[in-house]
């Protein structure tokens, strides 16, 4: 793996709600290398977005980072973003680590010209003056392949299509040349033909700028196409992580395998029935004592409900949180 850029260690995030304290994220450890694309997958409520928001401490007021470190590598040493004073963190947000979201329409300011929104980060970080910011915005709009950028720079978000708005958001996140971009379901609201354009753009930006990406998605197909490594979350924990190729070719956790079998595809033999994962996702308020997937798991054994399994190595760099995981080549 490339040199580590960001290392999350033992992250635990709790939400204070009317139903009690909910463990949204538990003991999550992840590493993103420089210029690497890490895919974070899982279904709604699994904690993937909360993990991402924790990195820049953008959590809602009722959430708290209860434990863990978020180490951003800087000249050989790591700074813990979880402990950094707000003022210092602000110099990192949007500059060294930026973020893009699912819904460009709600993430953009409707009454501000897109060119000004793109250049704003440069001004906010004191990296340039008004005129240079405008030139840089124009340049970045070209980098993200916004056609007719000279005209678009003066337009407002509502004058743009969904695909162009997503490009504007990527330009905003790119203008300070960050080392890491967090992309939270960046193509989920888009049609497939536009999704393919945005994926190709993100993959191209990584090549050109050595940008690392934390790519969050519920869509396994999308993640398999873009990620170098992948981590799968279920009910607040990482249940499997490893090189994307390994995880998709030989999933080592029954949940990953179940997800892969449940999704209809274009390439496989037609099937009469989809192999659905039966039962509902457990509520965070009533997690079972052992493995959270145990109630839905086809491989469950009595010992699965005793304690939360540790991550074990299923292959080189490929880890699974399952005691039933067969060692590779057996």
């Amino acid at each position, binding site marked *: 793996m490339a040199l580590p850029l960001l290392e999350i260690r033992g992250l635990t995030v709790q939400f204070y709600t009317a139903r009690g304290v909910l463990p949204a994220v538990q003991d999550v450890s992840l590493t993103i290398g420089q210029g690497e694309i890490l895919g974070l997958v899982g*279904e*709604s409520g699994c904690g993937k977005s909360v993990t991402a928001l924790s990195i820049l401490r953008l959590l809602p007021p009722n959430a708290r980072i209860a434990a863990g470190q978020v180490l951003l590598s800087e000249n050989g040493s790591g700074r813990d973003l979880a402990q950094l004073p707000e003022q210092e963190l602000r110099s990192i947000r949007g500059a060294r680590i930026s973020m893009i979201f699912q819904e460009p329409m709600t993430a953009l300011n409707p009454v501000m010209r897109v060119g000004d929104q793109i250049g704003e980060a440069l001004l906010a970080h004191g990296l340039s003056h008004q005129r240079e910011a405008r030139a840089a915005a124009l340049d970045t709009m070209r980098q993200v392949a916004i056609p007719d950028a000279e005209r678009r720079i003066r337009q407002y978000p509502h004058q743009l*299509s969904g*695909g*162009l708005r997503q490009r504007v958001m990527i330009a905003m996140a790119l203008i300070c040349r960050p080392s890491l971009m967090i992309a939270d379901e960046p193509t989920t609201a888009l*049609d*497939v*033909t*536009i*999704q*393919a*354009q945005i*994926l*190709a753009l993100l*993959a191209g930006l990584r090549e050109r700028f050595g940008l690392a990406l934390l790519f969050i998605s*519920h*869509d*396994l*197909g*999308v993640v*398999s*196409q*873009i990620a170098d490594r992948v981590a799968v979350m279920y009910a607040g924990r990482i249940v499997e992580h490893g*090189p*994307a*190729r390994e995880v*998709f*070719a030989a999933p080592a956790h029954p949940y990953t395998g*179940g*997800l*892969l079998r*449940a*999704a*209809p*595809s*274009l*390439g496989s033999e*037609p*099937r009469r*029935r*989809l*192999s*659905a*994962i*039966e039962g*509902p*996702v457990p509520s965070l308020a009533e997690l079972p004592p052992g493995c959270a997937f145990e109630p839905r798991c086809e491989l469950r054994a009595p010992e699965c409900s005793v304690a939360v399994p540790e991550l074990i190595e299923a292959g080189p760099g490929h880890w699974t949180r399952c005691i039933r995981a067969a060692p590779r080549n057996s």
Partner: protein
Amino acid sequence: MEPLLRIERLTKHFPASAGAWGSSAAVHAIDDVTLEVRPGETLGLVGESGSGKTTLGRCALLLVEPTSGRVFFQERNLLQLKRGELRRMRRHMQMIFQDPFASLDPRMRVAEVLAEPFHIHERLSRSEIRARCRDLLRRVGLREDALDCYPHEFSGGQRQRIGIARALALQPRFIVADEPVSALDVSVGAQIINLLQDLQQQCNLTYLFISHSLPVVRHIASRVAVMYLGKLAEAGPTEEVLRRPMHPYTLLLLVSTPEISRSGRREFHTAPGELPSAVHPPSGCRFRTRCPLARQRCAVEEPPLRQLAPGHSSACHFAEEVPSRLNPAVFPM
């Protein structure tokens, strides 16, 4: 076999206020679409947002009044039925919606949601209605004690089951399912797709299944119709259309769909540009602005839907030249 539903030359324009002087314009949501749904089959209707597929589904049930065209259900033109006749017809034609959060009244208990169709269409005693509602819940895989709960007490998948139970209440023959699994997680969506297929068998149902997802449509639909900007681009048997697309737009959808890569190999194939405006659609072929095969003729002459193989038709002047899906290099990125 006679089709259960036949849509003939259906057009739906919505008024769009364009220009500062209120000059009237129209959104061409559907233009001159003809298609059939046969008894017992699932017809998949695919296309991107703005293609007109949802409007078509609603026009098929006359939930939206078409601008012109005819809609035959069981060989009767729905547009000529009297109000009472149409209402009696409606019990045979139901709808399942995309958003299980928006399509259930949050102030109604499940028992009330499910009883409503019976109040409108049947004269049954309270206890009979209650018994029918219990039976409906059982058929969609929910527990009977769900009757006294409110929608917010259920997960998305469970709510979608309630929406399906409501659609089944009057034992319809035909159901329009508008993106019924798009808002659900993969593992739950698979459960719902299996349920819809089981119910189709048990109740002899016919589906018009609207979806943006080719893999989902491939799984559930025996025939598929592809829409682009209000027009039918291609229609035919699903496996044949996917194996040998005869419209460049179908090919574009196929190559843009991200399949799970198990080899680590990546490919992004797509066409530049986006869906043009439905207020001022391009002249000639509506897909020509994004089409790698487009020529002069495409801008001038609108391609008619032509039958190219039994039951397989395409609205492309150059349908015979559309490359195979295995050669997606026409859409490089």
